[in-house]
């Protein structure tokens, strides 16, 4: 079982609005914003819970995490715990990875506003108690009356704490889904609370009391201030890339400067002020000097910061200029390409509205670009083109595939014809943001193709006609040869009857004429036989098999036994490699060549005829030969040798029709082979032939010529240099 079967199903492509500024939008910093939020919220939740436990069980120590400082009030602890838990829950529920924990958390996401609004309510009730100067006993709900009880509201959270709780609670209750404005309000509330906490923290550092009128001298406990600060920052960091937080988290010069300057200011300025206070109280310098020193330090710090800012901004500008220059260059190049091309180039957004088009578009559609931009397919194209283009456009959007098609601009007409490619334009994350189209005019090519097609058809027609004509001619030749035999039979037959039945009535002279008639009839019969054979080897299918050449050479030689009667003819059949061809036709080749060899050696006291192969090891590419020691011929006439009815000898010297070698050549041509001759007058003739190889396609003409000429050279060399014997051949071994 394969764990994962590759799915053939293609997901439909994701479409997106074309947004030209998307590329310019800076990315987000990869700092662990959410991580900080989680840690801060966890710390506050745990701390709040510990303090709450202290209050519930009356463990004084736990209510005062930093000994010597004032206690965190029970309600504050409760509210902080609620807020911390709400932040954690929200963070988990919106976590990107939807694992088990996230799914469980998202099921309880509805708790977030309840928790945070409860915290806000605690603050609200407290503020109301302060404002109306009443005591609902609300402050003692958890802690009981175990408190000191000295002050009327010793257990009540400080007023700034209550205000901060209201701010934080309501901030957290605002859902992010409510849009940018809601997000900004949330961040504003959280920031305000953070400032309040920061203020309280500074108060502790400077050991100053926050005095809000004579009645409200309570101060925020140090731990509470820290917790509020953490919660405020955590809320800001839960949505680091939305609303105003983008100012800080964005990956550009502004973001970078903000991220560096804000902590520097928030930490640096209090340090300077603290230094001044401590220095003064330690008597190191007086108030005025301290003030001057602080101013100098602040100025110094500010100068350094401004200088850094300037450097950063300059660098940013340079980078920006460079990017712009590059982009301009690319833009220039792309424009040049689009405008310079004769092809129509256009792009449309996913709604079909024209985003860009080149000059060719204007020429093709006949409407100016400015008017077409922003228009849909229907509005910007000639109506006859709309259905086809809409179909392709929708196909690209539905499948994400490129469509290449040939379009006849006027349906049914060849002219003009274009080839159009419609393809998806993807953004950086693979969404289709536009559909591009490039179309080229191929009318000319189409017309050429039509011409070529027409010419091809014509040629085909001509070829068929030629083939038919050849076939007719062949059939004609066959029939004529065939029909010629019938009167010939009569001539011969009646002559024979005359000779047999009227021998007595005819004198010697008459018998001589009768002989001449019969001899002429025999010659003609032979000629017709040869013509029929010539015609036959050119027709019909070849039956290719592996042929034992030695066997068919011997069989051909047997048939010629009558030629050897009363003569001394020595025939040697050497080693012949097998061939691949039509056995019957190859038999004709040997019969014809051997017959010639017998014929032209008639004047020799001892006729020597050799059948062999130049290179028996060459297998199917072997060159065979038939050699005789006959009268030979003048090589000047070798060209005429294979033409039908051409004879190199006087009529009457050697009987024969002149068709034999033409028939042999025809057979070899049908095998993609070839034949050639080598002869010395008075010494003899060698006929060479070669067949196409089985394992290779028939040789190309050039190869063929090269091979044949090299064969010829070799043959001539071996012939002329060693006229007596072929090396490696035991011919004459009879």
């Amino acid at each position, binding site marked *: 079982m394969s764990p994962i079967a590759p799915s053939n199903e293609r997901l439909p492509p994701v479409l997106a609005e074309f947004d030209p500024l998307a590329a310019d939008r800076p990315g987000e910093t990869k700092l662990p914003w959410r991580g900080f939020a989680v840690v801060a919220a966890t710390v506050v939740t745990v701390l709040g819970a510990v303090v709450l436990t202290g209050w519930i069980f009356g463990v004084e120590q736990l209510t005062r995490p930093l000994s010597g400082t004032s206690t965190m009030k029970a309600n504050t602890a409760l509210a902080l715990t609620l807020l911390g838990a709400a932040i954690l829950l929200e963070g988990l529920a919106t976590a990107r990875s939807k694992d088990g924990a996230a799914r469980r958390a998202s099921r309880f996401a509805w708790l977030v506003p309840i928790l945070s609004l409860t915290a806000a309510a605690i603050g609200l009730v407290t503020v109301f108690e302060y404002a109306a100067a009443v005591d609902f006993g609300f402050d003692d709900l958890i802690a009981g009356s175990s408190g000191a009880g000295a002050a009327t509201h010793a257990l009540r959270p400080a007023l700034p704490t209550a205000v901060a709780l209201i701010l934080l609670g309501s901030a957290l209750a605002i859902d992010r889904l409510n849009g940018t404005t809601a997000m900004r309000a949330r961040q504003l509330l959280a920031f305000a609370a953070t400032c309040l906490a920061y203020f309280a923290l500074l108060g502790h550092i400077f050991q100053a009391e926050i005095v809000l009128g004579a009645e409200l001298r309570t101060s925020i406990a140090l731990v509470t201030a820290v917790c509020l600060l953490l919660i405020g920052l955590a809320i800001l960091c839960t949505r680091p890339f939305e609303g105003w937080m983008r100012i800080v988290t964005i990956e550009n010069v502004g973001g970078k400067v903000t991220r560096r300057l804000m902590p520097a200011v928030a930490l640096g300025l209090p340090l300077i002020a603290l230094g001044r206070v401590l220095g003064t109280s330690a008597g190191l310098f007086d108030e005025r000097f301290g003030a001057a020193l602080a101013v100098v330090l602040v100025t110094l710090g500010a100068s350094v910061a401004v200088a850094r800012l300037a450097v950063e901004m300059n660098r940013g500008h340079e980078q920006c200029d460079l990017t712009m220059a590059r982009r301009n260059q690319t833009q220039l190049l792309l424009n040049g390409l689009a405008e310079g091309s004769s092809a129509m180039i256009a792009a449309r957004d996913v709604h079909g509205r024209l985003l860009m088009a080149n000059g060719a578009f204007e020429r093709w559609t006949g409407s100016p670009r400015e008017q077409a931009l922003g228009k849909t397919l229907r509005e910007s194209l000639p109506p006859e083109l709309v259905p086809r283009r809409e179909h392709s456009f929708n196909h690209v959007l539905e499948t994400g595939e490129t469509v290449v098609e040939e379009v006849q601009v006027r349906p049914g007409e060849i002219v003009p014809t274009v080839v159009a490619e419609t393809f998806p334009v993807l953004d950086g994350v693979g969404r289709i943001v536009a559909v591009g189209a490039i179309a080229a005019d191929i009318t000319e090519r189409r017309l050429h193709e039509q011409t070529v097609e027409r010419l091809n058809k014509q040629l085909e027609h001509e070829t068929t006609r030629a083939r038919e004509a050849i076939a007719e001619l062949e059939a004609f030749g066959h029939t004529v040869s065939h029909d010629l*035999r*019938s009167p010939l*039979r*009569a001539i*011969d037959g009646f002559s024979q*009857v005359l000779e047999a*039945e009227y021998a007595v009535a005819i004198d010697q002279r008459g018998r001589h004429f009768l002989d001449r008639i019969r001899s002429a009839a025999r010659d003609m019969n032979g000629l017709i036989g040869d013509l029929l054979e010539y015609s036959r080897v050119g027709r019909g299918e070849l039956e290719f098999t592996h042929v034992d050449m030695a066997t068919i050479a011997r069989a051909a030689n047997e048939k010629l036994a009558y030629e050897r009667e009363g003569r001394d003819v020595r025939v040697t059949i050497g080693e012949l490699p097998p061939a691949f061809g039509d056995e019957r036709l190859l038999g004709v080749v040997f019969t014809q060549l051997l017959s010639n060899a017998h014929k032209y050696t008639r004047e020799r006291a001892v006729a020597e005829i050799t059948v062999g192969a130049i290179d028996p090891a060459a297998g199917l590419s072997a060159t065979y030969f038939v050699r005789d020691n006959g009268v030979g011929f003048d090589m000047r006439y070798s060209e005429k040798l294979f033409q039908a009815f051409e004879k190199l000898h006087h009529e009457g010297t050697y009987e024969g029709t002149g068709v034999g070698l033409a028939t042999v050549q025809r057979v070899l041509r049908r095998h993609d082979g070839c034949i050639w001759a080598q002869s010395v007058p008075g010494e003899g003739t060698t006929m060479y032939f070669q067949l196409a190889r089985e394992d290779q396609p028939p040789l190309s003409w050039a190869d063929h010529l090269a091979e044949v000429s090299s064969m010829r050279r070799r043959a001539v060399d071996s012939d002329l240099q060693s006229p007596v014997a072929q090396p490696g051949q035991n011919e004459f071994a009879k």
Partner: protein
Amino acid sequence: MLYEGAILLVEDDPNDIELTLNAFDRHHLANHVTVVRDGEEALDYLFRRGEYADRDGQPNPQLILLDLKLPKVDGIEVLREIREHESTRTIPVVALTSSRDTRDVESAYDLGVNSYIPKPVEFDEFIKAAGQLGLYWLILNEPPST
């Protein structure tokens, strides 16, 4: 026993007819030969139609010498009809061919000729073919060779 019309010669070439008859005559067999000049006539004769409708009382030939190239109805077609009809199916047919073209001979054998003789019909060849076909009455009729 031989009777008139025991051998049917289907041949259109008058020269060939005369030469063949001459050869038979020299061996005193010509009386037994009936000649028809084309395929249609051959069929008419065999199936007693047309001008041969009243060929009554005459039995079918004992041997048919059939030229394969005939006017009107081709020899091959004649052969097919002979082989299709109950009354003629068993008559031996010797094809006369003007060449030793294997294709002609093959198609003739395919259709069921019993033998073939190349033209012109040499009597020796004919007797050889007849002997192969078991027609000993023809051989017996041959006078002692001179």
